[in-house]
């Protein structure tokens, strides 16, 4: 379907989503900067779990009110309020409460490899990204592409995506491990 149809199908039909993701980051010369992989679980609206197991463990959990980011290597947890329109990460983008069209100027970039490509341009100035590409198939997200200020790209590909299956609530709660410093309110990686 067209961009609008695919976005509408996504917003209206996808209540939960889980699967694996593979992430590759390249710089403006196309050289690999980093790659990672992990699990994603989303319960729309508002809740998600995004956990890396490669190249190292890293976890982000949003219970609808707060976003927890836990780095075992850094022994550090940051927690900040879950904003309405924060488009800082794929999970926040896909789980957000507000309708996509409310917070993004959408542009249809046509079809590639059988997927509908939609450009999302955040309306708010504070967004970390000028635009984000969302690739969908029958309203189900398959891939996201973030372009960074230096001209590099981070591509997140979703794999084995299951939609509207049951996901236990425990996936969307987080209690900081004992002895780990919790830092309040720090806005993303500021």
């Amino acid at each position, binding site marked *: 379907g067209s961009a609008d149809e695919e976005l509408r199908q996504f917003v209206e039909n996808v209540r939960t989503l889980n699967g694996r993701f593979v992430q590759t980051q390249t710089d403006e010369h196309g050289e690999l900067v980093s790659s990672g992989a992990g699990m994603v679980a989303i319960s729309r609206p508002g809740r998600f779990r995004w956990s890396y197991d490669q190249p190292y463990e890293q976890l982000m959990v949003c219970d609808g009110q707060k976003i927890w980011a836990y780095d075992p290597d850094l022994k550090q947890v940051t927690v900040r309020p879950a904003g309405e329109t924060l488009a800082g990460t794929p999970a926040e983008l896909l789980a957000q409460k507000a309708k996509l069209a409310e917070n993004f100027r959408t542009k249809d970039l046509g079809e590639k490899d059988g997927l509908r490509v939609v450009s999302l341009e955040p309306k708010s100035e504070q967004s970390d990204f000028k635009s984000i590409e969302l690739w969908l198939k029958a309203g189900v997200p398959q891939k996201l592409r973030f372009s960074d200020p230096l001209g590099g790209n981070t591509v997140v590909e979703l794999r084995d995506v299951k939609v509207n299956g049951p996901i236990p609530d425990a996936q969307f709660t987080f209690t900081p491990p004992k002895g780990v410093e919790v830092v309040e309110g720090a806005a*993303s990686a500021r």
Partner: protein
Amino acid sequence: CALLRPKTEGTPADVAQSAAWQQRIALLSPIDRFVLQGRVASGALGFKADLRWKQHPAGRFEMRVAGPFGARAAELAGDTQEVRVRTGDDATTVTTDPEAWLEKALGVRLPVSGLRWWALGLPAPESHSDVLIDPASGRALRIVQNGWELDYVEYRVADSLDLPRRIEARNGDTRVLVLADQWSQLPPLMNPAP
């Protein structure tokens, strides 16, 4: 000259006698190029960023620091004298004090001035330093230089080299953790003269 304090207070191990330290210097000092992929974080500020440091021969380097998914990415490129900073396709400035620039831009000071040597576990040769070594392994345990105090908390073998993995760096009231996740493009191992 490097003032060395013995790790174990009892046995004085001055720089000449510690064969292991001399061997590390001979092995690691010729390394004039590498790519280090890692993270920098300051717990108190909740700051965390991905770091890529590309060291080139003749002291030139490129440092990329960015938030998740490349958010707010900045690139510093240059040498110890002058650094060009790029934060957007057209936004470029030049600085002779990259640490001060980064502190203004990111709100946290990072040990850029000597990272080229400190990441290898060596003091920078061109200025005074205090180094605390473990005489047995020859590993640096602490390097004090250029206003930084760097504690080498963990080492790990990368490309058959015993290199730092976790460095806790302090400068005034700044506390920063530098994690070296991956090393690549190191020059082939030169066998140091016995």
